[in-house]
C-alpha cells in the first residue's frame, strides 16, 4: 500500500511517499519540504514530481492521496486540496483528510509529554489543539479550533501536565506562552517545529486502515473560520 501525502497549510510546502508492507511495516520512501520565499503553487508540484521519480511511483500506484485539510492559510490549503483532488481523480483513488494540527502533532508521536501544535491564525488567535500520546494511544485533550492564546494557556494550566509547543504559532506567541503557561514546557527544535508530510502520511496510514477516506470529488478544506465577508455580512444581512 502506498500513500502520497501533501501539506501546504502553512509556510512549508511538504510532500512524502509512504509505503506499508503486508506485514504492517511502514517506511517513508521519500520526503521533500521547502520553507522559502516561493509560493506553494511554484514548489509543491515540482517536489511531488521529484519524489515520485525518485521512488519509481506513478500516480496510479497510490492507494490514496492524503492532504493536510485544515486549518491553515486559506490559499495554501486550497493549493494542497486542488493538487490532491486532481491526482486522486486521475488515479481514481480516495482522499484522506488529515486534520492539519493532528498531523503536525505527529512530529512528536512517541512523546510522553502533552503535545500542543499551534499555528498563527492572525486576529489575535491561534489554531491550536492538545494531544497526548501516552501508551501509544492518542488522547485528544482539545480538538483543533481557532482560539485566543490565553484560553489555551488556561486549559493547559488546568491539566497540570508538561507540554511540548510547536508550530509557527508557538514562535509568534513565544513571549506570551512564557508569561502565561505555569506548567513545565519546552519549544520544539527547528527540525520538528513545522508541518511535515511524513507525519501527515503516518497518521493518514492509520486513518486509511480505519476506513477514514472520502471521495476526492467531495473533498474541501476545513477552514475552521468563515470568510471575512460572511463574518461581517452576517451582521449586515441578518444571515445569522
Amino acid at each position, binding site marked *: 500500500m502506498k500513500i502520497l501525502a501533501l501539506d501546504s497549510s502553512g509556510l512549508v510546502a511538504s510532500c512524502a511517499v509512504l509505503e506499508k508492507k503486508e506485514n504492517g511495516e511502514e517506511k517513508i520512501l521519500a520526503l521533500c519540504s521547502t520553507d522559502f520565499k516561493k509560493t506553494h503553487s511554484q514548489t509543491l508540484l515540482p517536489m511531488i514530481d521529484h519524489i515520485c521519480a525518485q521512488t519509481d511511483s506513478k500516480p496510479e500506484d497510490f492507494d490514496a492521496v492524503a492532504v493536510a485539510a485544515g486549518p491553515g492559510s486559506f490559499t495554501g490549503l486550497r493549493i494542497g486540496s486542488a493538487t490532491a483532488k486532481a491526482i486522486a*481523480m486521475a488515479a481514481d483513488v480516495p482522499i484522506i483528510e488529515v486534520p492539519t494540527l493532528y498531523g503536525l502533532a505527529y512530529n512528536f508521536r512517541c512523546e510522553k509529554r502533552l503535545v500542543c501544535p499551534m499555528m498563527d491564525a492572525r486576529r489575535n488567535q491561534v489554531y491550536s489543539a492538545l494531544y497526548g500520546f501516552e501508551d501509544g494511544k492518542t488522547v485528544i485533550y482539545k480538538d483543533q479550533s481557532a482560539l485566543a492564546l490565553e484560553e489555551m494557556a488556561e486549559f493547559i494550566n488546568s491539566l497540570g501536565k508538561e507540554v511540548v509547543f510547536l508550530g509557527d504559532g508557538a514562535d509568534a506567541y513565544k513571549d506570551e506562552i512564557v508569561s502565561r503557561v505555569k506548567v513545565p514546557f519546552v519549544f520544539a527544535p527547528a527540525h520538528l517545529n513545522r508541518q511535515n508530510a511524513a507525519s501527515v502520511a503516518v497518521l493518514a496510514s492509520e486513518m486509511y486502515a480505519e476506513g477514514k477516506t472520502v471521495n476526492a470529488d467531495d473533498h474541501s478544506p476545513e477552514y475552521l473560520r468563515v470568510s471575512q465577508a460572511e463574518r461581517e455580512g452576517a451582521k449586515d444581512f441578518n444571515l445569522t
Partner: protein
Amino acid sequence: MSTNLSENKDLLVLGIESSCDETAASVIRGCRTVLSNVIYSQIDIHTVYGGVVPEIASRGHIEKINLVVKQALSEAGVGLKDLDAIAVTYGPGLVGALLVGVAHAKALGWAAGVPVVGVNHIEGHICANFISNPELEPPFMCLVASGGHSHLVNVSGYGEYEIIARTRDDAAGEAFDKVARAIGLGYPGGPKIDKAAREGDPDAIVFPRAKVRENEYDFSFSGLKSAVLNYLNSCNMKGEKINTADVAASFQKAAVETLVGHSMQAASDRGVRKFAIAGGVASNTSLRKAFEEECDKRGIEFLRPEPVYCTDNGAMIGVAGSYDYLLGYRSGLDLNAVPNLSIGERKGVFKV
C-alpha cells in the same frame, strides 16, 4: 505544427476556468468545436453581497472543480488520457480563485501525462469568437468589455495580440454594476440595466462622454459613473422623483456611445475589415445593436460570440489554449497564477 484547422481537426483540449466566480470546464475538438461546456455559476451566493467576494469564490471553486471537470469530460465522451493538452486560465483575475484552477490543471496534467498550457483569460474571451464564427481568421480588431476589463485589441495572428486602448479607471462592466447598485437594481448590473433601459428614454438625461487626452482611443468610465451619482444626489436633495428606467437608458446610451465611438474611430484609422466584441458586456443588446449599425455603415464585418460564450466559460479557454498549444506554448509544473497578467504577456508559458 501549424494552426491550419484541417491538419488539426482531431486535436482534443480540456479548458479550465476559475478566474472569478464561475467554475467552468470544456472539451474542444479541432480548436473550435465545443464538445462540452460546463459552467457552475456562484452568482446567487455573491448577489447577497452585491459583488463577488474573493474568498467565497475560491471556496466554491475547490468544492466544485472535480465535478465540473468530470462532467465536461463525460459529456464530451473523452477520457483524460485522450487529451492532447489541458489549458487553464492563469490570469488576469482573483489570485485565490485562479490558484484553484491552476493547481488542479497542473496536477491533472502531471498525473495523466498530458501537457498543460496557461491561458490569458482576456485572450480567451477574444477567442470565443472563433467558436461562434467558424470562418473567422485573424487579422481582426476586438473590443473586450466585462466586469473587470475594457480593452480594444488588435489580433494580428493566432496568439498575437496588441493593445490599442484600455480603460483609465473603471472597467465598463464595473460602471454598469456601480450604477445598477446606486439606482437600486442590484447585482449583477449589466443584464439588469440592459433590461430596465428598454422601458426608459435614452435622451432623458445627458451624461458626459469622457475623452482621454494622451490616447484618444482610451476609455474612462469613472466620470460617467460620478455624473450618474451626482444626478441621483441632486434629485434626492430637491425631492424630485427618480425615473430608474430613464437613468438606466441614459447611462447605457453614454456608455455604449463611448465604447462604440472609440472602437469605430480606431477601426477606421487602421483600416480594419473585421470587428469583433467579447466579454460579459458584449451580451448587452444595446451595445450589439449599435456595433451592428456602425460597422454596417463603414462596410466592416461585425462578429460576436453567442451569449453563452460571452460570460466566463471553459470553452473559450480551450480554444485559446488549442491555438497556443499548436503554436508550441507549454507551461511547467511551477506555473503560477498571475492576477494582473496583461494581454499578449506570457509568464511561465514558454515555447518548446
